[in-house]
Structure formats: C-alpha cells, structure tokens
C-alpha cells in the first residue's frame, strides 16, 4: 500500500525530467506556454523542479542513497541573472535556494530562459548537447553535472518511466 502511495505521489515529478514531459505539457497548455514561461515564471518553474527532486529524496530511502555522502553546490542561472536557483547537497540532504550562491562547485549559465527550457524539455537533458548548441556555459567541475544528470534519470528509472 505504501509503495503504491509513494508511486502515486511521485509519479508526476519525473515527468518534468523526461521526454514525455515535452509532449505532455505541449498537449495540455499548447506551445505558447513555453514562451510565457520566461523571466519570473521560468525562475519558479526551475525552483519547482529542484524542489520536486528534494521531495523525492525526502520520500524515498532508496533514492536518498544517492546523496548519502555527497557534497555539492550547484548554481543554475540565465545569463541575464533573471532566473537563478541553487541546490546544495550536504549531510545527506538537499537544500534548494532561490538565490545565487558564490562558492559553487558548478555554475550552469543558460544563454536565456528559452535555452534553459530547451534543456529541461530535451529528450535526455544531456548537458553536452546544450554546450554544443552553445546554449549553456558551464563553469567549474563538470563531474557534478554528470552526477546530477544521473540523479535525474535515476529518479525516472526508479519510477519506471526512464
């Protein structure tokens, strides 16, 4: 019963991270939504996504194993600084901030909010694709991005949608 409940609660989250979400959202809100999701709206959206991940860590012990001894400080933002969110992993926990943090391990700067959305809605959130498209500038240790990429897909995998 509990596992059914968990699946039910968590099911929507990975959709934000997989290819299905593009189709899903497009169907629901039509393409115009993507355009409206600029500026402040994107900011909240990004934060929402990170909080979704945070919630998953909170709810799933198996998933929490990913961050047991993991320390890492991530800063996601757009070049114009309109959108920014940070994720801090420490002591087996994840913390999501709306602000720009200074001592990041990795800073991911999207060219603009469209580039950020393109990344989030892309088929496999491959940061290398975004770098090749010149949509993103990455500063710092790339391995943190790879680790983050795994955690995103691990969530999808654990819920059987990946």
């Amino acid at each position: 019963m509990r596992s059914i409940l968990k699946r039910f609660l968590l099911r929507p989250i990975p959709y934000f991270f997989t290819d299905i979400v593009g189709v899903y959202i497009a169907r629901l809100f039509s393409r115009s939504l993507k355009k409206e999701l600029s500026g402040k709206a994107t900011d909240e959206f990004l934060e929402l996504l990170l909080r979704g991940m945070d919630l998953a860590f909170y709810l799933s012990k198996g998933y929490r194993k990913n961050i047991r001894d993991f320390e890492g400080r991530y800063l996601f933002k757009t070049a114009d600084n309109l959108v920014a969110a940070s994720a801090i992993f420490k002591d087996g926990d994840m913390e999501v901030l709306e602000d720009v943090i200074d001592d990041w391990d990795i800073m991911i700067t999207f060219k603009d909010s469209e580039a950020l959305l393109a990344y989030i809605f892309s088929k496999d959130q491959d940061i290398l694709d975004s770098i090749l498209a010149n949509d993103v500038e990455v500063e710092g240790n790339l391995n943190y991005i790879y680790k983050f990429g795994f955690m995103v897909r691990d969530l999808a995998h654990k819920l059987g949608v990946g």
Partner: protein
Amino acid sequence: MDKEQQVAIRDLSLEKYDLTKRVSYLKDIYFRAMPEICIERPRIITKFHENSGLFKKKSITILDKARAYRDVLERRTPIVRHSCSYEKGVKKMKRFKFKEAPLFAGSTTSKFKGVPLYPEFLALALWPELWTISKRASNPFHITDNEVKKLNYEIFPHWIENNITELARKRCYEENLKKYGLNKHDPEMKLLERLVIFLASKPNCISHTIPDFSKAIKQGLRQIIKDVKKKKEETSEDSKKEFYTAISEVLEGIITYSKNLAAEAEKLASKERDPVLKKELLDIAEINSHVPEYPARTFREGLTTIWICWIAIHLENPNVGLSLGRLDQVLYNLYRNDIDTNKLTIEQAIELICCLWLKIGDHVPAIPDAGEQLFGGSGSNQAITIGGVDKNGKDVVSDLTYVMLRATELMKLRDPNLNARYYQSEKSRDYLRRLCEVNINTGATPALHNDKAVIKALVHKGETVEQARDYGVIGCVEPGSNGRFYGHTAAILLNLTSALELTLFNGRHRHTGMDLLISTESGDVTTFTTFEEFKAAFEKQTRWLVEQTTNLNNILGRIHQDFYPTPILSAFFEGPMKKGKDLIQGGAMINSSGATIIGLADVADSLSAIQRVVFEERATSFADLLQALESNFEGYEFLQKRLMNPDKTPKYGNENSAADANVSWIVELLDKAFGEKMNYRGGHYRVGYWTMTNHAGFGRLMKALPNGRKAHENFTSGITPVSGVTPYLTKALNSVAKQPVGCLSNGIALNLKYTPEHGNKEKMLDNFVASVEGYFDDANGERDGGMEIQFNITTHDDFVNAVANPEIYKELLVRVSGYTAYFKDLNPQMQKEIIDRTEYLLSTGKARDFAPFPLPK
C-alpha cells in the same frame, strides 16, 4: 641470430587458405555481440586508491601506481574462455551463449567484447547515461543493474574531484590565482570546453605511441626484472631506484596474470570431456605458464607474449591509438623457425593471426552520447605496421608480411588498423600489387605509407636515419620510431577553420556569439587593403591558438606527471629503462608531442578565394563577403557559385599554383608555430593532417566559409582536397605530393574513393598500382612525393543501402580519415561525408568488353 627476411612463398595472395572453422565461429559471435561495460578494473583501482590513501595525496608516485596495477593484474578474474554475451533484441538486448575456443587466453576486460572504464579520465561523462546506455540509438553498450549501482555508489563518487580534467582545472585555478589574483579562473580549460576550437586528448588518455615487445619475446620478463634489479643496485638516485622497483612490480603482476590464466586453463581442462578441447586447454596452460616470463620458443608463444603484455598495457591506460608496431619484424624469427622445423604450417599461422586480430578488437572505447553524435564510430585505432625497410635500409617484406595480409583480408576487421609500409623499388612492385588487391577485397585496408617520404620527414625532425627507418604507424597514420618515440601524436586536434573564423571576425566566433572576444583582435578585415594583411591577421590568430593549445597540453601533461605515472608502458620502451625515468617524465629517446589539423583544405581554399575574389579581382568587397557568410549565402547565390567554381576560383587539388601555394604557406606556418613550442617532456611539437571523424563533427558546428561551403556541412578529411574540385585523380594526387613532407611529420591521411567494378581485375590493379606509384614518386627530387594514401572501395549504391539497412551491412568497413570503422557505427553526418567524396574509377568504368575482334587473314 636473426634470420634474414625473405619471401619464399610462391602465391603471394595465399588464396588457398581460408578462414578455419574455429575462426569463422569466433568471427560470427564477435559480430553478433554488443559491447558490454566492464567495471572490473575501475572497481579494483578505486578500492586500491581508497585503501592506500592515494585520493588524498598531493601527487602519486610511479611506485604507487605500479602497486595499483599489480593489484589489478593479480586480482582480476583470469578468463580463458568467454561463454556468453548480449546481442540486439527486439526491445532490449538479449543474452546469448556460445562455446568459444580461442587460441589465446585472457582479455582486456571481463567481458567478451568489453567497454573498459577509466574513471581517472573521462568515464564519469557516462554517469548520466548509465540507465539508458544500453538502449541508446547509436552504439549502445550493455550494462547490468548491479553494475550501474556499483559505479554510481562505489566507484564514480571517488573520482569527482580526482580525475585528470578536474585536477588540471584546480591547477589552473591555483596558477591563475597566483598570477592574476582571480578566483576560479581557468580560461585554458574554458577554451577547450567550448568544443568548437580544438580538442585535447590528455583528459582522455595517455596513448598514441608504440611499445616494443621484442625484448619481452626474446628475453622474457623474468630476465628484464633481473636487469632492472641490477640497475636499481647500481644507481644511487632515489628516483631511479623507485622507477626500477616500479618496473619490477608491474612485470611481476603481468607474470602472475599469465600464470593465473594457465591455472584456470588447467582447471577447465580437468573438467573437459572432449579430448580435442582438453588438449587445447592444456596447451594454453603450458604456454601461459611459460610466457611472458621466459623467452618465447614458438611463434604462438611469441604472439601470446604480445597479447598478455598488450592486455597489461590496457589495464594502465585507455587505448586511444596505442599501437603494436612492426609485428612482421618482431615475430619473424619465431615464424621462420617454426616453419623450417615443421612445427607450424601457413594455415596455422594465418589462424593464429586471425585469432590475435580478434583478440585485439576485444574492447571498444566508451563515448558519451553527445560524443557519438559528433565523433562516433571509432574503435581504439590500434595500428599494426607491416613491410618497409629495416634500420639498415634493407627491404624486409617477408612471408609473414603476406600471412598477416591474408589474415586481414579474410577478417575485414576495424581493429587492428593495418598499415603497410612500401619502399619504392622495381622489385617490390608485386608487394604493392598485393597491397592494392587486399584494398579492393576489403574495401578499406591497409593504408599505404611511402617509406622514402616518411623517413625524410622524420629525419627532418632530427631523428637518426636508423631511428627513422624503424618507424611504425601509430593510431591513424602517424609515424614514430618503435619503442623509442613517445610522441603522444594526437595530443591536440585543432579546428583550423576556427582560426579562420577568428580572423574574419576579429577575434570573435559566430558559434559563441559576436559579443564575446575569444582570442585577440587581429584587425577589422573590411579595412584590409591587401591579401598580405589578411594573411598576417590569420597568422596572428593561428599563433594565438597554437599558444593556447600547447599551453593547455603542457598543463595536462604536468598533471599526468604528478598523478598518472606509467610504469607498464615504460617497461616496454628503450629510453626509460636506460635512463631510469618514466615515459611521461621524458624517459623516451624521442619526446615530441603531436597536433593534427582539421579543415586544411577548407581553410586553404577560403584563403585562395579571398585572395582572388576580394583582393585581386575586387569582384566583391570583404564587407559583402562577410554579409554573404552571415546569411549562409542566401541571396548570394551568384557569389557562392563563383566561389565554388574551380575554373574561376583557385582550389587546392586542382594543380592551381596559387591555391597549392596557400596550402604550403599554411602547413609551413603551422609547422613553425608548433615546432617552436616546447612540451612538458622537453620535446617539440609536430604537426599532421588526419582528422578521424572530426571534420564531420566540427563541420556540424561551424557556419558558412569563404570557399563557398555552407553552414554545418562537412569539412574535408585529412589532407584531402575538397570533393569536386577536379574530376582528374592525378591532379589531386600531384597537389598533395608536392607539399613539403618536413612540415607533415605527424602524418597525413589522403582519402581516396574508388568505385569497384566488375571489370578486368588485372587492369584495375594495374591502374591502382600505377596511381600509388606515381603519387609516391619524388619526380627526380622535384618534390617529396606523397606520404600516405588510403582508400574506400565500395559502390555508391552499397553505401546508400547501408544507410537504410545497417544490419545487412554490419561488416562494411570504411576508412574514415586515418582509422577504419564499420560504416553502420558512424553518425549520419559522417556517413554523408563518405558518400559525398569524389569517386574515381579504377578502369574505364565500363563493364562492357572492349577487346578488339581479330580479323581473318
């Protein structure tokens, strides 16, 4: 006593020998099997680093590393026979079982066809894909859930701060903080991570060289250990003592690994009921308990020594162009002895070589998906060299050369990448004819190297004639003296069209946007009044790039020196054993580094177009030309047509002296700019022109160019002229053959596409041979002659069909630019590049018989 190499066989084609049952079966399962990720090595290495506190150390010594590798060698499971693998299924891969009976035990990974991971280098880039990698569209790898978990929880986390890239980044941070007071400042790494300017291979490997196995074969590792111990006692220097101890450690590890295989074979034999198989296992047990510890007594033992040492080298380093050298030289004595004493037949020799070739290809490199999209389809590019002259200048083509050619012809494999040396002379034309014939029959191999031109190029760079004559081919096409040359020949892969881009846009790059000054300003081209001014600006940008790329390479090299000593590779090199010094510390006899240039023809033709159209004829202004480039020639069709017309705009490869002179100017500029730079081992940089698949990858990222090429189209490969500039093959060949080889010392790849015909085979061969001879010829010293040439001989229709039906064409072998690849593994952009290459005919192209009718008298 060395036996004199000679050709005793009558039929050079060895046509009557076919694949044996054993090899056919092995080859069949080899092509069926999908690669599987192997976590054995990373698991043992990570544990060792953790337990020995190596992650916390400020630097890692050669002895630390030697102990780590000995640990891997001794702990890894000795596998004599694989029994299962995975194959393509409907939805996902499915397991299949087989019973292989190879003649060599051991494998580079724990899998039948493995993907070895090196978390020290770039393995972590696969992290996000671990759950999906077995399902990805291009080149998927199998991995079990348990292996994913082990990598995710136990292996990868340790390397987040400790792989070569991040250690180098930290080093940049530290140095730039000291120099400029800037925090987290790493412009060197940043330039690399823009991915459009250049690639560096040091974050990925220590590779691209040729070890020498002759000592291991002739004396055995035990003798080398004895020698090393003596050297250790004789020296008073601690660093040397440490070096020699490290060498003993790894050699002991290699011996143990082989003995473990022997024990496993014996165990299997005791359970085996089939007397034939039992005998085979006992043979393996006997051989592996003897070599590589002691001198090889037979041809098969010699091959086993090479194979076991080759495995060991893989446990130290990823194979990116690690090459085996002149195997027909190294093994000749054993071969001749066995044949003369009737211990070996030619059929058995071919079977042994076939089995070794399959073993050599028992692993594939790990590439992240985005990398596949740009640069995919590569094997490890393990080159083997046959033929050519020896140190004394004597032609040493032998029976064994032909045995290896026959095995290659029968197997048609991507790895090893066979390279044939040819020393031009009247009496060796039968050999060249046979090389051409194997090319027709395999469609893509071997690549042909012109001994006279290559030796001249190497001597020009300061090697002795003896060293130069004993060159082997590394990776794709790069020449280097066997066991003496540590020349990391693929250290830098420079996209030369970026130098052009930075010139055209005054230090900016359209890919990264006009707001960002990437390099340095070289002037607004629209204000230039002469072509010389433009060339000066191009030179400035090129030199800036050379400065940046060599600087970063040196930073990365120093990180290798501090964290990645290489005891195993050093054990098989002449210099380190003499000097008591690791290869990466400059232990080799020859210590150069190599750069290769992508986009030569496109850049040279762009320069020629600017020279003719903008400055000489003033047919368009520079401002208009830039506008045309910006709009990708939309609305500028007239100009584009003009720029692309070889009759009106000079093109390299069309025997146009202005265009060819621009090519020479560029290769001389690059040779000088790189040649002036010192590397971290005290050697100089050398420049070559081979592009693997990078001309397609970089092409995809770059916008329109002044030679009329539109945005995102492929660049031309290697040193090859742009497709379509001339329908006449000899013109293209002459333009290449007159380039100064002294400036091409890191090798060239000239890609030629022939259309196979069902015509008169002998006539086709006549023309094939004559084309190669004419291209290699130095025209009585008027030119250097072409250094290298390689072929694709497959019909246009077959290529087009292979795009649509990859499964039917899974063995279709092609030359990319340098190495060989399976066509189906290439990404669509690269497939298109091969399809679009100019096709030349080997005969008249008419299948009809033109034979005259005799008239009655």
